[in-house]
């Protein structure tokens, strides 16, 4: 494989990790959603590049799904949702940004050390991809545990899924990649949006903003 092909996939996968860090320190929701959309764009580029160098055109479907669904549709829906809920201005800080970033760096270091040492037996490209993918997964999980807001938890989950798709496309010729990504997208659309609706309509009994503010203790 040419060095150029390797460098490009390296660059794209590294971009995903970098954007995971961006997700970690966004404490307001709109930029968080935008950062997630950007990460999804990087994912779809990365998958498309893999389709190119592995000569596996079916991966383009996965790239297309990532682009349309995760980079465009989901962010738009989420933006709308947080505007309707009037939570687009809230700032959430559960754990300080400093400690979270340090924990994130430690996780990336861990996954690099682990995967690079362990996977000396397999194809170099798959190896780098697995190391980056594990970093993205761990950073997403870190985000899910340090946030309390349901929207940020879901974004954390979706970034974990971005990491999984990266890992799956890196493994040469893995079956069911396209199917899995389709199933994942349906899962997200179905469950996440569905649970949001439940939480909003039934738990709060109303979408009236004043009452919901009272529920959150922001207004007497």
């Amino acid at each position, binding site marked *: 494989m040419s060095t150029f092909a390797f460098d490009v996939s390296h660059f794209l996968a590294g971009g995903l990790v970098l954007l995971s860090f961006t997700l970690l320190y966004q404490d307001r929701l709109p930029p968080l959603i935008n950062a997630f959309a950007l990460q999804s764009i990087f994912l779809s580029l990365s998958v498309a590049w893999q389709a190119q160098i592995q000569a596996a055109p079916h991966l383009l479907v996965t790239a297309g799904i990532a682009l349309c669904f995760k980079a465009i549709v989901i962010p738009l829906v989420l933006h709308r949702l947080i505007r309707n809920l009037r939570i687009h201005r809230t700032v959430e800080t559960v754990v300080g940004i400093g400690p979270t970033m340090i924990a994130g760096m430690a996780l990336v270091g861990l996954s690099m050390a*682990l*995967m690079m*040492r*362990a*996977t*000396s*037996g*397999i*194809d170099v490209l*798959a190896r780098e991809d*697995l190391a980056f*993918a*594990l970093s993205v*997964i761990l950073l*997403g*999980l870190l985000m*899910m545990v340090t946030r309390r807001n*349901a929207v940020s*938890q879901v974004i954390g*989950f979706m970034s*974990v*899924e971005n*990491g*999984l798709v990266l*890992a*799956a496309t*890196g*493994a*040469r*010729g*893995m*079956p*069911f990649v396209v*199917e*899995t990504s389709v*199933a994942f997208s349906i*899962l997200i659309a179905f*469950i996440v949006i569905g*649970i949001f609706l*439940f*939480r909003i309509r*039934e*738990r709060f009994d109303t979408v009236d903003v004043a009452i919901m503010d009272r529920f959150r203790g922001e207004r007497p």
Partner: protein
Amino acid sequence: MTGLLNPATGILIVPAAAAMLLTLIPGYRIAAWINVAAAFLTFMCALTLLVWRPAGLGRFLLVDDLNVVFIVLNTLVGFTTSVFSSGYIAHELEVGRLKPSHLRFYPAMYQVLMAAMNLALLTSITGLMWVAIELATLTTILMVGIYRTHEALEAAWKYFILGSVGIALALFGTILIYSVAQPVVGNGLPAMTWSPLTAHAAHFDPMILNIAFVFLLLGYGTKAGLVPLHAWLPDAHAEGPTPISAVLSGLLLNVAIYAILRFKMVLARNPGTIAPGPLMMTMGLVSIVFAGLMLYRRRDIKRFFAYSSIEHMGIIAFAFGLGGPLANFAGLLHMAMHSLTKSGIFFAVGHVTRIKNTQKIGEITGLTTSHPVLGWTLVASVVAIAGLPPFGVFTSEFLVVSSAFAHRPLLAVPLVIGLLISLGALFLRLNSIAFGEPSGSTAPDRMSPLPMMFHLGLVLMIGIFIPGPVVSWFQHIATLLG
């Protein structure tokens, strides 16, 4: 077209077809009957599999001695729970705790859950198994939240978040297994199929196999409710409808254990890997002791028995981690006994909470006086789950403990301490629930006690006498597991 006549495909097609049919049926009464009938038919297909296993299943399915145990158990408890569920849900509708609109898809989802669990057990593809377990989890998440109360939705959300973490770790492990198998087995499907994986496991890179197994153990261990990944389990059991608690405890946890066992078998074929045993034993022991201690502080009866499930999953993980023919035999037997006993207990708890209209242990007293049949069945079931003779759980726990003493005497000490701790907690709570002055409502129990008595009877029978063919069958599997 031989595939359609195969009982193995029947186990998948019957629940799938029933689920589709059930989405079209609006009334709960008819739907409940179809649900029971479909579960029964699935169970019959599974029984057929015991005596007749035709070849020609294709590339995607696999029937061997190991998964047949799980399938028979799964479909049997699935059937009895569907019987219990029809009475329980009908009552919830009557008193208005559930509205018909909430239950519109309940029977259909029940069948989807059964189909997904059966697929996870039957499939020969690692990826497909992951998808099936995923589907089963999602269905249960929706069912846990069915009461739509604040607590139920909170429990469902927690289950969803922690379940997703497990899902992610397990998928990463599955991908790692593929990427380590791909250079040896070749591109595509074979590198994801159990039999080539096990056959070529000796040539895989041991280091990656190790890491993959850790991910799989953590991922599927979350589903099995092993400590420290158990946090979702008590909430999901307590807030969901009782039939779902029974299915979760009795079946879904087993499916997760099955997944871990399959990967353990792949690992066992490679001499260079770490022994997976100690990892599983540690998680098992921690679960046993932790759950035993937590039992004392529980005030909610369903949460109480949910912690007991964590303890028993710990025992099972410990037994399989210990390895060797005897411990594997004990693990399999314990899994079967726990499924039957625990789902029976949840049936009984369903009756109790229906009558008393509360889940608080403090508000339930004197059951044996007010409701002798129900009270004594519950007493017997709790005696069984505590691991006392003459019930089957005693046999299996005794085998686990004695093989632990034989191979790892030091580890047997915390095991026995953990078992005694939970024994104490179970009897402490049982005493106040079953004896003393009856409190609360003394309305007669109108639901049929048959499902719970049937489970208890089976456990009692195994405790007194295990039929010879069952013993030799379980022994055969135990040697397969290595």
